Structure formats: structure tokens, C-alpha cells
């Protein structure tokens, strides 16, 4: 019902509103965004049509709030989860994700959370996907280790 009423589109309109420079109350701003992501995570969980409806936003989610956390990584994980073909479609964004993970300091807790979510790309339900595992490992190890992941 929510998909047909385009609830996800409206929530994304709020989330996409990237006016960080003009934010005076960062705490409340993050609370709104986090709450929006939390709703979207429930929206796509175990629901393929909903996952597909948000697939086009993966890139936006990465770019807007990938460095904050706020549930954006979890949302991308949930969108791409449980469908091997979705991984292929979101592959270029996934590469961007690895780049953005590299940028986070090794001491940050966010780094471990985001690395944990890379496992989403390597599984289909409970089964590992060998090709995707190879892609993830290759992508991670091909980096110049400017800010080493290991």
C-alpha cells in the first residue's frame, strides 16, 4: 500500500534535501534523517518490489549520507540484499562505497559498521555468492592502501 501511495518517494524527498551548510541544529537534522532511513529500512526489508522501487536511489543515499551513517549504509544493504541480480545493478555504487570506506579514519567505529555491510553484497539469503565474494575481495585489495582497510 505504501509503495503504491509512493510513500518512499516522499521520504526520499526529505532525505535528499541536502542543506548541510545551512543547518543550525545538526542534532535535530540527523534525527529526522535517521528516522527517515529507519522507516525506509523497514519498507524494503524482505520485500523485493520495495527493494526494486528504491534501487534507483542507492547512489543518492551513498553520496548524501554515506559518511555519516544514520542508517544509510544499512538501507543500501537492505535494498541490495536477497537478490543476486540487484548486486550487479548496484555494482558501480558499491565501488563508490569502497572508496568512501577508505576515506574514513581507521579509528572510526563507522568504518567497522560499513565494512560489516559489505558482507551483504556477498550473500544471497544464507548462501555465499562466489563471484560477488571475488569482486569484493578484488576491489578491496586493489586499492593503494592510502588508508589501509586491514
Amino acid at each position, binding site marked *: *500500500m505504501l509503495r503504491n501511495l509512493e510513500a518512499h518517494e*516522499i521520504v526520499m524527498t526529505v532525505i535528499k534535501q541536502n*542543506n548541510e551548510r545551512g543547518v543550525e*541544529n545538526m542534532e*535535530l537534522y540527523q534525527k*529526522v534523517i535517521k528516522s527517515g532511513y529507519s*522507516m525506509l529500512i523497514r*519498507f524494503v526489508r*524482505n520485500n523485493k518490489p520495495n527493494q526494486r522501487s528504491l534501487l534507483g536511489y542507492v547512489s543518492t543515499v551513498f553520496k548524501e549520507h554515506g559518511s555519516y551513517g544514520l542508517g544509510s549504509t544499512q538501507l543500501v544493504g537492505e535494498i541490495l540484499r536477497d537478490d543476486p541480480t540487484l548486486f550487479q545493478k548496484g555494482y558501480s555504487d558499491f565501488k563508490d562505497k569502497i572508496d568512501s570506506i577508505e576515506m574514513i579514519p581507521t579509528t572510526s567505529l563507522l568504518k567497522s559498521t560499513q565494512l560489516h555491510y559489505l558482507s551483504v553484497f556477498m550473500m544471497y539469503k544464507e548462501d555465499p555468492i562466489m563471484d560477488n565474494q571475488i569482486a569484493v575481495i578484488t576491489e578491496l585489495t586493489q586499492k593503494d592502501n592510502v588508508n589501509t582497510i586491514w
Partner: protein
Amino acid sequence: MNVDAKGNIMTLKINNVFERLLDDKKLDLEELSWADYVCINLDLILYQNEGLLNKAFALLIRFHSQRKSLLDLLRSVQMLESDQAIDTLRNIELTLTNLRRMAQNSEFWLGQTDRESIKTSQKTIGIFDYLSGLLTQSESDEDMFENDELTIMKHAAENPFLAVEEGKNSDSHGNTPISTNVSSRLPHLTYYSVTGQMKQTCRNRLLWIVRVQIQSIKECLEILKHMKL
């Protein structure tokens, strides 16, 4: 009634409505046209005008994919049978109207410190939480719906009239042209007290498909008017 029997009855009903609608000559552009509709479009494709070529080609595709378009539109119709579901729909519609209004003005209140902005932010969080609550609550209902959908899809697969090849008549992104070029919104949700209203819904959706095509024909005419022939 078990799920299989329910699925069989639904398939038969929809099959009848579907076939009768597509046989309806009043909605057939080939019948409405004074000359061969396909030939007109083929002729338009031969003009050295990129816009006209694209539109005429899109019209041809739309004309030959009406069955698939109608099927896609019907798939997005959600039937609400219980009073409780209808009430929930009304509540959600109201909430989403408020949220849409706030979302459109979000640049003015999101992250701002004045009292009104804080109030709007809190209201938005409240709506997000309400929607999250609905999603948690409906998880078990979703499972039931998914089972119903699987049953209907199973029956559809056994019926040749529904056997539309996936990807056929779709553009390079896999979308059907009809859904990518819509200029007006089509309501997806309809609630039913009696299943007979399904017929009206089917007709409305076919009318919409034809209307979109007529709009494209008008656009072709506009291009022709401005062309030096």
C-alpha cells in the same frame, strides 16, 4: 475456499474482463482512425525529423503493447476488501498529504532552530515513526499478500492470455514505453466493496492507455504543423 480455488476464480473473472475490453472496438485506435493506423505511423517514421520519428515509433510500440501495458497496470492495483484496510488507507493518504507538503518545503525547516521549524521536524519524525509502525505491524499481512500474489502468478502462468514475454516491447532500460512517458498520474489504489468493480478499474486503465496514445498523436500533429514539407 482454499487459495487455489480463489486464484482460479479470480483468474477466470479477470480473463473475461480483460478479453472483452481488448475486443472493444470503441477503444481500438485502428477502428477509430480513418486510415490504417499502423501505416500512418510507419509513414511518419520516414520523415527526416528525429522528434517525429521517436514519437511515431513510440506510438507503434504502445499500440502493439496494449495488452502488456494493461496487464502491468492491473498488477499495480491493490484490492482492499476489509473495512479496516480501507480506513488504514484513508489515514495513510491523509498523513502522506501532510508529509508531502512538509517535504516540499523541507529546505526551510530541516535543521533550522526557530520554534516552527523544530515543531515541523518533530512532526516529521512522528510521521516517519507512524509509517515504520505500520510496516512492522503489516509484516505478517505482507506475507499473506505475497502468498496470494504467488498463487495468482502461478495461475497466470498457466493461462496463455496472460503469457506476455518479459522484456518484450520494453525500452533499453527494461521499462515499458507506456510507463516511462506518462504525463498524468494514474491512481494505483482502488478499494472494493464488491469485486464487480474490477471491470470498471480495467476499463479505466485501458482508457488511460488510449488517452496517453492520443496525447502522443497530438504531439506528432504539432511537429508536423511546424515542419516545412
